[in-house]
């Protein structure tokens, strides 16, 4: 992992405010670089020299507990866990080195490794589930997850939603700008600049509440950083860990300043009322601080000098003994001399989108994990959509207003809401209610949400198809003696459905694409669909090639389907081959 270590060393140097571009032998950016592995103590950084002037000064630390209960007093069965003995942990895949998914597809990072050892002290097994930060705290509050582990900075606003343990890490905010930017510090940020933040983060609150500026909000760190590199934004206010983990040599980005706030330490989130679990995690945290585990993991993953006045764990926890990070940092700063020339835009694009090594790496995962899951989601949701859609269509053309009205309202609601909102409403709203039935597995909920949404569209497609059948068809069937119901089933509906088969296939194509949205609900590694597999690898490497690879898989599914539409269309117009005498009356499948 020497390449990675060098890389870490250089970003640490960047954090010292020297320059973004530093020396070092580097392999091509992105080539097999796993951002989700411990950088090692050699990558240590000293306190940012430009920290003091930006610091707001320590507030009174009112949340850290004075002591903890003894570890022996923890009753493992009284922790209110969804699955006794197992800690279900919601985490993220894209925030190295704190929380991330490694090339082996395992969730790791400093926070998660630390939590593993804490759980070990408590005699608990850990199960990690990847999710999106926007839904993480809500899912912790609703007990979908026992613990949220995502380098979460504690704030008063977040304490209204969830409870927190004592701190195990601390956060600087880093200011990242393109090289040569006139923005050289937080005090240079001004209205009119495009300042990027990830929405829902402490940095967003900092920009809005402390700096009184209006930030540009992004869904995740990769997107905001990509926008900075291509100069679509002027600055990025980042969690320091994120900035360190993401800004790489040759990138068009520099960390110019850091700031720190003592009252917002980094802790694990737990449902507010579950104080037994908070107490137990606090006890475990103090225990691994006392036995040196915290110091070891900290040195491996996030070696930085501790800011003055802060230490992990409760107020009575021992101060961890650690190497002199400042000295280590000082010893490798000279390497930061000769810089590689910045790459041309074209070369950057090629690296970012067409890294063949990453394609080779992504394709097996996409094939084995992503593709089956995408198909399961899309096909199951389609079945729900078609069945429910047919009921909606029949209700929609019914002569009874008591059928027509509910169908109308349903269709208006589910067609009118954005897909993401439906997924979040069903997944996070209905999820806790049916948690017992689904075993907190987000798949049934994701399928249900996609299916309910598809039903609204499919219902309208069916309705238009059925209504396009000439009234003479119904009349002729009824004149033969068929009831209304059988006339519809045997004569009208089959014709209507045939006419809209192309539209139905198109609907299936949009479901294939919409299935990517279930990642909002939190998936374990084996449940990831195409987009999430690509996104995770993209998060590990900071390279867009895995997403392009995922995109190619979508195309491989959707392009043949569009041609199928055309084929069906032609065949419907020209009719099928003559029915064989053995099977003269082919039953309609409706």
């Amino acid at each position, binding site marked *: 992992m020497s390449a990675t270590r060098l890389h870490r060393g250089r970003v640490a140097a960047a954090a010292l405010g020297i320059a973004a571009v530093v020396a070092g032998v580097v392999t091509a950016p992105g080539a097999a670089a796993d951002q989700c592995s411990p950088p090692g103590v050699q990558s240590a950084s000293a306190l940012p020299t430009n920290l003091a002037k930006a610091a707001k000064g320590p507030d009174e630390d009112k949340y850290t507990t004075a002591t903890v209960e003894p570890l022996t007093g923890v009753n493992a069965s009284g922790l209110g866990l969804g699955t006794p003995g197992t800690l279900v942990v919601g985490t993220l895949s894209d925030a190295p080195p704190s929380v991330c998914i490694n090339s082996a597809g395992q969730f790791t990072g400093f926070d998660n490794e630390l939590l593993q050892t804490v759980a070990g002290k408590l005699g608990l097994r850990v199960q990690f589930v990847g999710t999106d930060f926007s839904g993480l705290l809500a899912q912790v509050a609703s007990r979908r997850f026992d613990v949220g582990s995502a380098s979460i900075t504690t704030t008063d606003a977040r304490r209204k939603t969830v409870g927190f343990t004592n701190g195990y890490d601390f956060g600087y905010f880093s200011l990242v700008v393109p090289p040569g930017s006139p923005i050289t510090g937080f005090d240079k940020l001004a209205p009119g600049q495009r300042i990027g933040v990830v929405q829902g983060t402490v940095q967003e609150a900092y920009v809005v509440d402390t700096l009184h500026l209006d930030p540009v909000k992004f869904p995740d760190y990769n997107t905001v950083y990509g926008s900075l590199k291509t100069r679509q934004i002027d600055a990025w206010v980042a969690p320091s860990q994120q900035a360190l983990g993401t800004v790489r040599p040759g990138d068009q980005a520099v960390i110019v300043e850091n700031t720190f706030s003592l009252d917002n330490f980094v802790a694990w989130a737990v449902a507010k009322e579950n104080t037994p679990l908070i107490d137990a995690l606090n006890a475990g945290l103090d225990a691994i601080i006392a036995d040196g585990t915290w110091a070891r993991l900290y040195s491996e993953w996030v070696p930085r000098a501790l800011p003055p006045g802060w230490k992990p764990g409760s107020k009575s926890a021992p101060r961890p003994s650690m190497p002199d990070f400042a000295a280590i940092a000082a010893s490798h700063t000279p390497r930061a001399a000769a810089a590689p020339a910045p790459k041309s835009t074209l070369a950057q694009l090629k690296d970012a989108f067409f890294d063949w090594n990453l394609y080779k790496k992504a394709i097996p995962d996409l094939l084995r994990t992503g593709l089956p899951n995408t198909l399961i989601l899309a096909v199951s949701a389609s079945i729900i959509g078609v069945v429910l859609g047919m009921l909606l269509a029949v209700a929609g053309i019914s002569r009874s207003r008591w059928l027509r009205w509910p169908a109308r309202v349903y269709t208006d609601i589910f067609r009118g809401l954005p897909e993401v909102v439906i997924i979040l409403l069903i997944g996070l709203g209905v999820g806790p209610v049916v948690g017992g039935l689904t075993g907190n597995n987000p798949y049934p909920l994701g399928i249900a949400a996609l299916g309910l949404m598809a039903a609204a569209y499919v219902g309208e497609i069916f309705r238009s198809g059925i209504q396009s059948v*000439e009234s*003479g*068809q119904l*009349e*002729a*069937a*009824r*004149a*033969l*003696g*068929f*009831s209304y119901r*059988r006339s519809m089933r*045997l*004569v009208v509906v*089959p*014709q209507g459905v*045939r006419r809209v088969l192309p539209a139905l296939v198109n609907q299936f194509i949009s479901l294939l694409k919409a299935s990517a949205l279930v990642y909002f609900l939190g998936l374990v590694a084996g449940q990831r669909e195409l987009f999430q597999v690509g996104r995770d690898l993209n998060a590990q490497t900071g390279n867009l090639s895995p997403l392009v690879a995922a995109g190619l898989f979508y195309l491989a599914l959707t392009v043949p389907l569009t041609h199928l539409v055309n084929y069906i269309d032609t065949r419907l117009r020209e*009719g099928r081959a*003559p*029915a064989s*005498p053995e099977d*003269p*009356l*082919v039953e309609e499948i409706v």
Partner: protein
Amino acid sequence: MMAAVALFKPVSLSGKGIHLSFGQNAVLRGVDIDAEAGATVAVIGPSGSGKSTLLRTLNRLYEPDAGDILLDGRSVLKDDADALRQRIGMVFQNFNLFPHRSVIDNVMLAPRKLKRLSAEAARELALDQLDRVGLRHKADVRPATLSGGQQQRVAIARALAMAPQVMFFDEATSALDPELVKGILALIADLGSDGMTMIVVTHEMGFARSASGTVVFMDRGQVVESGPPERIFEAAQTPRLQRFLSQVE
């Protein structure tokens, strides 16, 4: 064409004082019509006079607001309407064949589903009916590949496959090219001479004159005049019928 003598057990059909309104619009205003067992009744009249609506009311596709319908002398208003329609075959101006099914499937669908015939029996029956209309060789094609005249023949075969006691023809030749009209009219006339009770709504005065036993002239939802064809066509009593005849002939 196969002769099918005594294929039918003809029954009589009568409508008594039938009223029907769509909202404010009174379409039928006390219509009386009688078709004796085995008789052919031709219904003529201007567009919008209620002729087609009358047929659809007599087989209860529309339920009459008032009046009575007698089949074989017995009121059928309280019967199951679907069962009633199985006894009355209907042929439409626009054929209304089921385009997603082959010709033979069109003919055998109702016998199979409603009379629960086996696939073989239904197929045999359907082929017999296609024979009657001279289209056995087209059994396995889609209706869309047939000419209008052929499609109407299939529609007649489809109606006859249910072995109806009465046949309705609703302007069955109006959508056909002129050279095809004659064949269809001949087919209908043959059915009549085989003893089928028929009510034929038509614009073909020649057919009404030569092939029907009774002609009914309707205007504005009422029967204005009715009687044997020679009296209707040679000795019209009412000015309205006289004006109508002068316009169509």
